[in-house]
């Protein structure tokens, strides 16, 4: 059974529906006190940091250059700990 909303649009009969990707408005950046600093000289471009980031906020800019989006980075430090080339260090963030 499908209920009809105000403007005649079909609405699901039960439950709560939200837009895909609407969590982007929740900036999780201020959660952390550390931030990753990338040393592009040491980077080998292995893509490990981008693959393992739980937030998905590390981006591959170009060859051997990565950057983290500080609007979402929670500062867990998994990227720095796992980086095979030790090209990432965690530094305290001053706001």
């Amino acid at each position: 059974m499908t209920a009809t909303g105000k403007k005649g649009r079909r609405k699901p009969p039960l439950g709560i529906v939200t837009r895909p990707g609407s969590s982007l408005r929740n900036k999780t950046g201020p959660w952390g006190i550390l931030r990753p600093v990338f040393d592009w000289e040491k980077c080998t471009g292995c893509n490990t940091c981008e693959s393992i980031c739980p937030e998905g906020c590390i981006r591959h800019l170009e060859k051997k250059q990565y950057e983290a989006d500080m609007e979402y980075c929670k500062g867990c430090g998994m990227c720095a700990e796992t980086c095979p080339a030790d090209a990432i260090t965690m530094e305290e963030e001053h706001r």
Partner: protein
Amino acid sequence: MSAPKFAYETTRGFLPGHRACAGCGQAAAVRVIMEVVGPKAVAANATGCLEVFSTPHPESAWGIPWIHSLFENQAAVASGIEAALKKQGKLDGVKVLAFGGDGATLDIGFGALSGMFERGHDVLYVCMDNEAYMNTGVQRSGSTPFAASTTTSPAGRMSFGEDRPKKDLPAIAAAHGIPYVATASMSLFADLRRKVKKAVGTRGPKYVQVHVPCPPGWGYDEKLSMEVGRLAVECGLYPLVEWENGKVTRVRKIKKVPVEEYLKGQRRFRHLFRTEEGKAQIARIQELADESIERYGLVG
């Protein structure tokens, strides 16, 4: 410092802004899985950490159609989605996924899961195995390993923690004779990626169990998630095995490390290192690891 602004396409399977703890292994695993599966998918999710942190009302971190109904019926809901798409002739190229935590899979939703396997629905079931009910505050589940301390199996003078070994659900799933069953670990993400790719390319019911470290539940520093998960595999307590049509087809060989290496970094096992009786339990855990190493031929 100027924060770089990135554009995030909402067609990406799993987006930032979710409320997972810092260093969450599960969030990392879901990202790897959704990258492989792609945007043309439908997911049913059980109650659990994943459901709670990815969809706090009124937001959703998913870029695909996603549904949460109850704790126990994610396999049944996914079966229904698959059957409906099939009837409408829309199943071609659409991947139906079901996500559940270890509590939802091994304990609560086990009947529905078994039914999904037996009816042969074309669904990929992913179990996020963090070895307890982490969402509600670390209660023991069927997946909690031997001697782990949880809030419902606390270690103390009268107890050394959980007294039953982990339930071997992958072997039970394989016993259904389904086309593909695999265990994976979030720490070995290339291996996880390959297994998910293989699973989505197979027709019929598939089961992938992913070991996902949990910093607050297991009690280790959040930056060590990858290391802890890797040690669980390397010591033999979490064998990475693939079954096809009920037969073991591939195992990941390990460099055998003593189980102490894995246990010592975690708060849920720290009581074992304090007493003589605890040492005896460590020896028993080593026996369990040796047993699985022997059963699957993990060394050599």
